[in-house]
């Protein structure tokens, strides 16, 4: 945004306006007071109190006196450890036990490997690498997993949304009968409340053949029609991604359509004359000129996706957390004001870091 701070007045009038200038400045401050007061009351003061509370063990309706606990909440939320799972040795043969059904070598369970003192680490997930098994343990596996899941959710949804949005925008950027209808249709997912779309998709994903997806997958012979999409760990994140992609792709496509409209048609005509292929036109004209719009869409969507709450809370409740829904359940269900505050501060820091990186990386300035 271009901000003209320099007065554009002619020199002779400057003297006369200096009194006006002072009254103008005073008026400006008065006009800004309500905005500033409200933002202090609902943003800066609560943010400060969240920060302070994050160092306490404050709990609602608790008999325990609130105390400063230093970094305890942060260390409980963020402590992680990696460990290699030793192979399970058969005492009779002295060799590694092999699962008779799958033929896979077996390893000791993570409970036996992860430290229990002074604090107990529980497993977040285990993974195999070069024939060994490793486990990631954390003192609060739910929170670590919620960070991990939110990151996967963010990266995947944005990838799909930008690619699909670009495709839709390019398809609709031609003149054809019914273009108005399509543009209107694009506003439908955007206009639907997130809570409403979450409920609609929850119903479409229901675990019997009363649900749309189980009907389709069964008809295509891909499943028995009883897949618990929202309860099965394997399908939870993909389902969340599908829901968000549906809801948000049209928004990206609308932004990109507006961006496409700004590209002068002569550029394509000139390229056509020069015999440039459609693909060449796309990579040399469309993409570079669309970059600013893409950048803005990317920033807005990333910051939005990182704080996703509605979708996860409504569709998964406590079966799967996003960072924000984790903080919510700590506050409301566990009444753990201090602990939830620490989680909020971590989320705030993560989002701020992303915003900074973006603004640096994409060269977005206030100008």
């Amino acid at each position, binding site marked *: *945004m*271009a*901000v003209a*701070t320099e007065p554009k*007045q002619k020199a002779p009038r400057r003297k006369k306006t200096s009194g*006006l200038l002072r009254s*103008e*400045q005073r*008026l*400006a*401050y008065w*006009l*800004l007071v309500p*905005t500033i007061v*409200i*933002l202090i009351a*609902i*943003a800066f*003061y*609560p943010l400060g*109190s969240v920060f302070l*509370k994050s160092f306490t063990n404050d709990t609602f309706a608790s008999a325990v006196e609130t105390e400063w606990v230093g970094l305890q909440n942060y260390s409980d939320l963020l402590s992680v450890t990696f460990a290699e799972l030793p192979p399970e040795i058969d005492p009779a043969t002295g060799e590694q036990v092999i699962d008779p059904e799958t033929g896979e070598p077996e390893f000791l369970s993570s409970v036996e490997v992860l430290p229990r003192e002074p604090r107990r680490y529980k497993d977040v997930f285990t993974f195999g690498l070069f024939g060994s098994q490793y486990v990631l343990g954390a003192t609060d596996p739910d929170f670590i997993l919620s960070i991990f899941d939110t990151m996967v959710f963010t990266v995947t949804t944005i990838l799909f949304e930008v690619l699909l949005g670009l495709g839709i925008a390019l*398809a609709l950027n031609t*003149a*054809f009968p019914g273009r108005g209808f*399509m543009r*209107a*249709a*694009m*506003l*439908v997912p955007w*206009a639907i*409340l*997130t*809570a*409403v779309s979450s409920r*609609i998709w929850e*119903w*479409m994903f229901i675990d019997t*053949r*009363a649900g*749309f997806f*189980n009907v389709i997958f069964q008809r295509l012979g891909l499943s028995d029609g009883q897949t618990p999409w929202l309860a099965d760990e394997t399908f939870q994140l993909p389902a969340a991604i599908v829901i968000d992609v549906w809801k948000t792709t049209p928004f990206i496509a*609308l932004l990109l359509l507006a961006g496409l409209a700004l590209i002068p048609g002569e550029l394509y005509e000139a390229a056509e004359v020069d015999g440039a292929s459609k693909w060449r036109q796309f990579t040399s004209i469309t993409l570079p000129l669309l970059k600013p719009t893409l950048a*803005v869409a990317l*920033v807005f969507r990333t910051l939005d996706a*990182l*704080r996703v709450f509605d979708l996860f*809370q409504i569709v998964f409740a406590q079966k799967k957390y996003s960072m*924000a829904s984790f903080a*919510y359940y700590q*506050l409301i269900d566990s009444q753990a004001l201090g602990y*939830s*505050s620490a989680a*909020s*501060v971590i989320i*705030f820091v993560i*989002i701020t870091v992303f*915003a900074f990186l973006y603004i640096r990386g994409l060269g977005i300035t*206030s100008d």
Partner: protein
Amino acid sequence: MTDAAVQRAATPTRAAVTTARKPRVRWKRVGFWALIVLIAVFLLFPFYWAINSSLKTEAQLQMTPATFIPRDPVTNDISVTFQNYKAVFQNDAFVRSLRNSALVATSVTVLSLLIGAFAGFALGKLRFKGKALSLYLILSMTMFPQVAVLTGLYAVILNLGISAIPSMILSYMLFTLPFTVWVLTAFFQALPDDLLQSAQVDGATPFQSFRMILLPLTAPALVTTGLLAFIAAFNEYLFALTFTTIEPNARTVPVAIALFSGEIARQEPFGEIMAAAVLVTIPLILLVLIFQKRIVGGLTAGAVKG
């Protein structure tokens, strides 16, 4: 005569000249329309599924496989029921949530526009020290994550005993106000400086010229930003869910739909939930369609200016 019409008139002749290319062109057209239909289905199908489900009885909803239009379980004839809609209208909690949402969203919109127009005028048209800093602050606030202040706000509200509806009205300005200020600043800036200056020459104070000249000129911008603020406030879920935890009567529409329960406690009444979903969505879609151009303009102004 539009360009499209000219093009359509021109196409057959060109196609006739290059007969060899004709089938390719036709396949291209078929492919294009297939793509358009695919996109339309992708965009509209979930809402269609909600309408379809809302017109089914409980027995029809439990039919496996689910039917794509409401059908009678026995005869398989098309059979539509409006009982879900009737039930939703008789559901006090839901009707109350509509009133609550209307109250909250309208108040937030009016307050944001009023306060935002003041700030937007100051930032867009007046000269004062600290303007660049204020603009930066407002811009960074448009990206502020609500969840970061959740515990802080909730503690304040509980300690001061503020009831849920005023809490929501006040706290929603966290996301509507910075956005409104930002967009209105841009609009005020776009108005010619001469307007303000000639008014000053005529002896009008800056505030008078704001109220009588500039504010009427920004009416279209106020409509657009107001609409977007209204939709954002109507959509809000995190604060609404948290603040109404101990005050179920203050629940707004998103919370009511998320926690929807039927008259008789049973498993999730998806027929009624879908009916409620359709009822809430239709006015919003109409609103969005009527103001389509403005909304797209406002969204891109809010975003592209960033």
